């Protein structure tokens, strides 16, 4: 299977507002796909649809060969929400071990490994409520990694992290992809776009670029991705 995710004509309405206007894209397996775009562009909604927690108006999303949100996918998909979703009144280790226990074949040792992988080894026995903001999000990331899913959907995993840690996290994402995991990572920081194998640029609920970073640069005629995106947005607006 070449594509881990197939999205076809996806329309999502939240409240009275149409948030995604018929999106079609595919995500290659075993690669890091970056979902980029300004805040409010629909990145989170698209990720929620992929994980299967978003009500959709029309269109379809297939994940690892099954419709998104199928019970069979629950042990195979890991989701990191944008706001950290871990128990503040438990320690990092208690959180990771609890989420580990929900997946078949995952042990406490795997939980401890996930904590080290996000650089929280020293803080493992600290209550989450006493962590800094960056540590708090990494505790949440550890709980998404712990189930060793085939697909990881990470909503802004590197926000608020210091540059060294950010670099380490990106190395980890690529190591996971090299081992066969498919990753979808959202970001609104363009300097992270260059680290992805593939880019999907979303703006106002539409996809305006969907290619490798190299191809996006070539298409826009500039080496700077931030500039490339600006040019693509202007070109799109000129055609409307």
């Amino acid at each position, binding site marked *: 299977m070449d594509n881990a995710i197939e999205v076809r004509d996806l329309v999502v309405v*939240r*409240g009275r507002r149409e948030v995604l206007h018929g999106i079609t894209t595919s995500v290659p397996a075993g690669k890091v796909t970056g979902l980029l775009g300004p805040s409010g562009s629909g990145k989170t909604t698209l990720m929620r649809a992929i*994980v*299967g*927690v*978003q*009500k959709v108006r029309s269109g379809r999303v297939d994940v690892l060969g099954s419709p998104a*949100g199928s019970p069979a996918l*629950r*042990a195979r*998909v890991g*989701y990191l*929400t944008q*706001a*950290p*979703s*871990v*128990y*503040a*009144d*438990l320690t990092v280790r*208690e959180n990771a071990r*609890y*989420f580990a*226990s*929900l*997946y*078949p074949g995952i042990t406490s040792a795997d939980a401890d490994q996930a904590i080290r992988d996000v650089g929280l080894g020293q803080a493992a026995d600290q*209550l989450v409520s006493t962590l800094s903001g960056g540590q708090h999000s990494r505790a949440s990331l550890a*709980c998404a990694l712990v*189930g060793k899913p085939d697909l990881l959907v990470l909503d802004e995993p590197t926000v608020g992290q210091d540059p060294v840690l950010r670099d380490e996290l990106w190395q980890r994402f690529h190591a996971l992809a090299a081992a066969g995991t498919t990753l979808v990572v959202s970001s609104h920081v363009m300097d992270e776009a260059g680290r992805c194998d593939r880019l999907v640029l979303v703006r106002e609920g539409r996809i305006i670029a969907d290619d490798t970073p190299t191809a996006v640069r070539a298409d826009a005629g500039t080496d700077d991705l931030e500039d490339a995106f600006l040019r693509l947005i202007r070109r799109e607006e000129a055609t409307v």
Partner: protein
Amino acid sequence: MSVKILLRTTGRVLSQLRHDRRTVAMVILLPLVLLTLIYYLFDKQPGIFDKVGIILIGVFPFILMFLITSIAMLRERTTGTLERLLTTPLHKLDLLFGYGIAFGVLAAVQASVGAGLAYWAFGLHTAGNAALVIVIAVADAVLGMALGLFFSAFASSEFQAVQFMPLVAFPQVFLCGLFAPRDQMADWLHALSTIFPLTYAVQGLQEVGAHATPTALMWRDLGIVAGAAVLALALSAATLRRRTD
């Protein structure tokens, strides 16, 4: 459902309580303070505490469990942990029964300590066995918990959640026979009291108070309370939606 996930969820809720000693202390001690207050309130009226005390041992866990469960579940919703849990292999009932067992354990401790104080320190006299009082009190606490889980779905903030307590718990407490015998109420209130599950918990406790051996009515009342708790848990499961807007 999975026994492993259920037990680990129960363990997780108990760990959260272990880290929150003040809440546990309040849950255990608050009913003692209130029972003491009630005991001295009827200081010059012998025999009244036997009637009122036994009811309160069942009513306090109901109210307290309703309150802490609705807040606990609201937190699961607002911090996003619920949404995350529902993307994992966890079954909704693993979560609900996990809360049920963990808070049930807490309620058992609470009811036992409360009953202990009433019997030994205040000389509470019941014709029936004290263990039955505790069993009914725990069933009552589980009912409060199940209603708390259900009603928390309709609250989007803690301000709203705490106000469901007077809305859901107070009418049941007023009409359960604690303040006035049910047959002396206006007919429509009497009718209303027959559909409130707390009424049956109180009636069951009164049966234990009045009869040396468990009566058929007491077992029926206990069954109704347990049935209402299961019904409320099933309704709560329906409020946990995997897909939302």
